[in-house]
């Protein structure tokens, strides 16, 4: 028995040594490490490095160590085609994944499509809508119809109330994401027969939100759907508090309310806002491996100027590499045709739960959560690390609490 254990240990050590000596499998990508999306991009990179280390500790992929080859795209789309050309033609990477965000995914598509590569993508909103590329696989759980699915839960929650609300205000920033989210909300509202009493956009560089919030209030909407990026989200929430905004349901598509620093900044002003999210530390969402991953992330994130808890993007950055890694193991090779065929039909076990892709490369079913902030205290960052502060209301299978309705500050 002892001999067998010793033999197994020696063989394992030998296989690790062989893996270490073998030519690595190179995974290439561009990432926003500076510029507008740098805070998210740096967090994603930490997650990807954790995945690389985890895989290499287990002996690599196909017995070969994994190496990440990446360049900073500075959040500028014009840098992306050159970076992917370099990755593929000079660095000779075996696999590629996308950078973070729609604007930085799309410029890579022509070269990826021309070379017929599988392309796992990180947080692109309907980025494959025009290309219809069958080897594109997007990890953000927006669902098969991202624009509509983004706000579907918000509307389902509203329409489940008695009496049903009738009037809605839709306000969004004038940028790519927010306009898409608002378009989806508009379509959902029309489908449900809601009366849209306010439907306007504002410039992303707006600093004073009081006139906007007052104008919304003047139309007396019961539901207020907001779609915007972090600086706008903070401004809208603060103005809503200052003005004493009255509505029955407030929130929807505000990016930024998922980040710990902003949560700490806004504190109790967040209470009872209902907003989208993708993963929160609620008991219904403790998928295998996610807590272990987040524990490693928290250690790695110290002093790097990124979200200290990393609930929003990092688990998905880890997961899209898990999808790729599991596909390589399952197909026992790096043939992109076989990898794509596997990704199209398989269900993947990842730290963000089971992932199954639909025909357009988006998740086959949406898992865009609607969460409600509860009992948020002032100046307390630690409170957001655990459950209870962002209660999952939607979808039903992940629900961890009931909606507090109507909204009260």
């Amino acid at each position, binding site marked *: 028995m002892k001999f067998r254990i010793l033999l197994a240990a020696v063989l394992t050590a030998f296989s690790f040594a062989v893996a270490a000596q073998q030519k690595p499998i190179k995974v290439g990508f561009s990432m926003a490490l500076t510029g507008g999306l740098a805070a998210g991009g740096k967090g994603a990179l930490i997650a990807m490095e954790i995945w690389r280390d985890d895989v290499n500790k287990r002996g690599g992929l196909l017995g070969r160590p994994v190496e990440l080859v990446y360049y900073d795209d500075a959040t500028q*789309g014009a840098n992306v085609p050159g970076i992917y050309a370099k990755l593929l033609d000079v660095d000779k990477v075996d696999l590629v994944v996308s950078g973070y965000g729609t*604007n930085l995914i799309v410029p890579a598509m022509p070269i990826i499509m021309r070379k017929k590569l599988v392309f796992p993508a990180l947080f692109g909103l309907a980025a494959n809508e025009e290309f219809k590329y069958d080897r594109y696989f997007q990890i953000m759980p927006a669902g098969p119809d991202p624009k509509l699915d983004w706000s579907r839960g918000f509307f389902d929650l509203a329409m489940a109330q008695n009496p049903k609300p009738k009037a809605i205000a839709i306000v969004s920033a004038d940028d790519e994401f927010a306009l898409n989210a608002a378009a989806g909300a508009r379509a959902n509202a029309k489908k449900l027969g809601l009366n849209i009493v306010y439907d306007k956009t504002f410039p*992303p560089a707006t600093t004073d939100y009081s006139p906007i919030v007052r104008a919304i209030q003047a139309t007396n909407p019961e539901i207020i759907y907001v779609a915007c990026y972090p600086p706008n989200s903070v401004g809208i929430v603060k103005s809503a508090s200052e003005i004493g905004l009255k509505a029955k349901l407030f929130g929807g598509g505000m990016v930024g309310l998922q980040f710990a620093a902003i949560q700490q900044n806004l504190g109790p002003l967040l209470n009872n806002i209902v907003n989208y999210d993708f993963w929160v530390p609620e008991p219904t969402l403790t998928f295998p491996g996610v807590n272990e991953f987040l524990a490693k992330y928290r250690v790695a994130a110290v002093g790097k100027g990124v979200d200290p808890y990393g609930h929003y993007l990092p688990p998905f950055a880890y997961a899209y590499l898990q999808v790729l890694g599991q596909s390589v193991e399952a197909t026992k090779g790096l043939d992109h045709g076989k990898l794509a065929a596997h990704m199209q039909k398989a269900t993947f076990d990842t730290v963000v739960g089971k992932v199954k892709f639909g025909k357009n490369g988006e998740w086959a079913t949406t898992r865009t959560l609607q969460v409600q902030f509860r009992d948020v205290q002032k100046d307390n960052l630690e409170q957001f690390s655990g459950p209870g502060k962002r209660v999952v209301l939607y979808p039903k299978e992940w629900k961890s609490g009931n909606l507090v309705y109507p909204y009260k500050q």
Partner: protein
Amino acid sequence: MKSTVFWGALATIFAAGLALTGVVQNEYYYNALYLILQGTLMAVAWNVLGGFTGYVNFGSAGFFALGAYTTVALNKALGLPLPLLILVAGVVGGLVGVGLGYLTLRLKGVYFAIATLAMSIVIETLVVNWSYVGGAKGSYMLTPDTHLWFDSYIQMLFVVMLLLTLAAVAISRMLNSSRLGRGLSAIRDDEVAAECAGVPTLRLKLVSTSVMGAMMGVAGAPFPYFVTFVDPLSAFNLFIAVNAIAMPMIGGTAHWIGPVIGALLLGTTQEIVKVTISSEMNVLIVGVMLVAFITLAPQGIVGLARKLRRGRPK
């Protein structure tokens, strides 16, 4: 430089570019070269107004974006081929250049510079609110399947940009060494004196702004095919405007070759730094080189070379 040598050099460079597409398959080099050439074309264009005429333009990104969005709009409306799109973008850029000249002809120095910046912001605001071209959401441009006899679309784009850049350099040289160019120099040195000496300053300034606008529009026209997704953030990028100013300043603004030297030096450095250190370092590099040249060699590399030649014992 003699005309025969100049035209021979241009023909040789173009032939070398064409030959390159037959020898090198690696797409990375064409991507990098495309961006360097785009920078060179923008620098040459900026120098027509900023260097020859002495009117500093901070709104280069606006003209560049005009070209890019002309492509987006006309491709969507009429599905025109790339050469026609480039031509129309040049006309649109030229017309807006003339408009800029008329509207700002009473402004000088820093006031003119601020007006150009304001114009760029006005154009950006119009584009953001023009949903036909994607508005703030941006617009997709699928790369066409056909690319003549080239192996890939980026090879063709590189050759197109090479041709446009060489044409711009030729126009710039002709302007610099012509009677018209001497008139522009007179405006740069002392506009009132030039006017008194009979130089038609208004007409020459309009020629200068329209040539600059047309060249920048042409530079922006193929951009949507290069990135495949154009949004106001990328088309009106401040970095485009900063590079368009920095490259001629580093190379030297008084001579037609100055912006070419500056663009090749700065553009190549930026492309190397992008894949060795970080894309963001490019901003620092531009800043440091600009400060260094303005302090140590205000006439740029061309001025420095002339100074050294004059100082050399005979």
